């Protein structure tokens, strides 16, 4: 692997965090994952403010975003990112339990880069997470200014 982009994971459910991290670990993608637990933290991270004040300015190579989040929900985070000139280039992947069409439509209308419904089957889930990780953190060339480990 030539370079590994930083993955910002926004997920409040510790079980989902564990499962996703396990899947990423299997493919050595877990090291560059930054985990935040709600929408507010995610925005704090991106804007280098609050508990992330003083963080160096690089953006993540991809944002894995759950929709149902405490405080500020996923769609709100997505709206903020995609309406900010500086942040809107960050690829955002919605990774959610919801199969609801209305969430999907809303996400795409806000300009999401990919929408993945977490499969119930674990092998499918691992595959989905792996493919996401490999594509967005390794294969895809992120916009300039993204954190990327050579």
């Amino acid at each position: 692997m030539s370079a590994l982009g930083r993955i910002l994971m926004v997920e409040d459910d510790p079980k989902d965090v564990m499962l996703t991290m396990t899947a990423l670990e299997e493919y050595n993608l877990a090291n560059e994952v930054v985990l935040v637990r709600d929408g507010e933290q995610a925005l704090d991270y991106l804007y280098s403010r609050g508990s992330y004040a003083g963080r160096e300015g690089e953006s993540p190579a991809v944002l894995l975003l759950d929709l149902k989040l405490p405080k500020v929900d996923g769609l709100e985070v997505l709206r903020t990112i995609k309406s900010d000139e500086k942040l809107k280039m960050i690829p955002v992947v919605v990774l959610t339990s919801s199969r609801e069409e209305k969430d999907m439509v809303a996400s795409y209308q806000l300009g999401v880069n990919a929408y993945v419904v977490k499969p119930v089957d674990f092998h499918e889930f691992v595959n989905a997470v792996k493919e996401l990780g490999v594509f967005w953190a390794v294969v895809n060339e992120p916009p300039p200014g993204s954190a990327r480990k050579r």
Partner: protein
Amino acid sequence: MSELGVNVDGDAVGRPALRSFVSSWAGYGIAVLSVALALLIALGLEKLGVPDVAFPLMLLAIALTAWFSIPRAAIVALLLACLGFNFFFTRPFGSLVVSAADIPFYIAFTLLASLVAWFSATRRRIEEELRSSRDLLRNEVAERTLREQEIRTLNDALAERSKALQATNQELEAFAYSVSHDLRAPTRHIVGFTELLLKGAGAVLSDRSRQHAAMILESAQRMGTLVDDLLEFSRIGRVDTRKTMVGVQQIVQEAMSEVARQIDGRDIEWRIGPLPLVYADRAMLRVVLVNLISNAVKFTGTRARAVIEIGSTEPDPEHVVIRIRDNGVGFDMKYVGKLFGVFQRLHAMEAFEGTGIGLATVQRVVHRHGGRIWAEAAIEQGATFYFSLPKSAGATP
């Protein structure tokens, strides 16, 4: 005139009674009184040196009688007026003798008085008719207002109910949304962690324990399918259909590739006839065909060579009937009524897996298109499912 209007206005119900009273004796009373009054005034005025007022006063008395009373009373008034005239105002005064010279005068008076009485009575009658039609109109207006009020009340009730329905619908949607989100997550976790457990500790577990873990996996996966199927079922009831002209042929191809995994190297002979265009919601029609084709594949699982036939007929110019026939295990026609119910299964779980929601969803889609679905089968002799759809936008269900 306006005074009269006010009088009558006040008592619309009492008027007919009053009139029938007036029309009998009071009518003649009015005749006598008005003529007597006219005579008195005429005599009085003559005494005061105003001559020749008797004639117009008499006419007035007759007109008043005609106005307020019945024609018969007016005739009485006319006779009385002639007598009074004769007695008081024509020579010889104080007697009822009529001189030949006065006869033309009496004829003229009678004709004129009759004319005046006739005018007066007609005028009165027209006025009465106008008044009664006005009352009729007023009643009608009142009735209409009442009816309008009723309609408004009903409308309000309807609006209320539709609001309640909308609230229920929203609740249902919120419920489905919550199921979609909150029920799938723990199911996924059970599957995930059981897999991880098996992977990490599978070697040290006894065969029995591994079997238990496999059971957990199977159940959780089944629950996941169940949740997804129920969501699909509920979604089809909630969303609007977006109908266009769609080719059944292409959707059948798509459905076949979707069930390809289920086929898993089995020997299946597909007989797919020419299929028509229908007016339907593409995604929903796909759900129907995936379910029916998947069923056909599933229930021919025990056949060495499965034969699945998909064809169509046109029973009338507006509809098409699509049929899916298989040579599978079939079912007892005794239970055909249960076929399309939610959670209804006609086979043991071990024999053929399934949630029992598929055909309920299929039926819902077909009904939402104004179509019909039915099936024919015999035990061990295959099953045929038929459903009808409109051929064009204008077709009546």
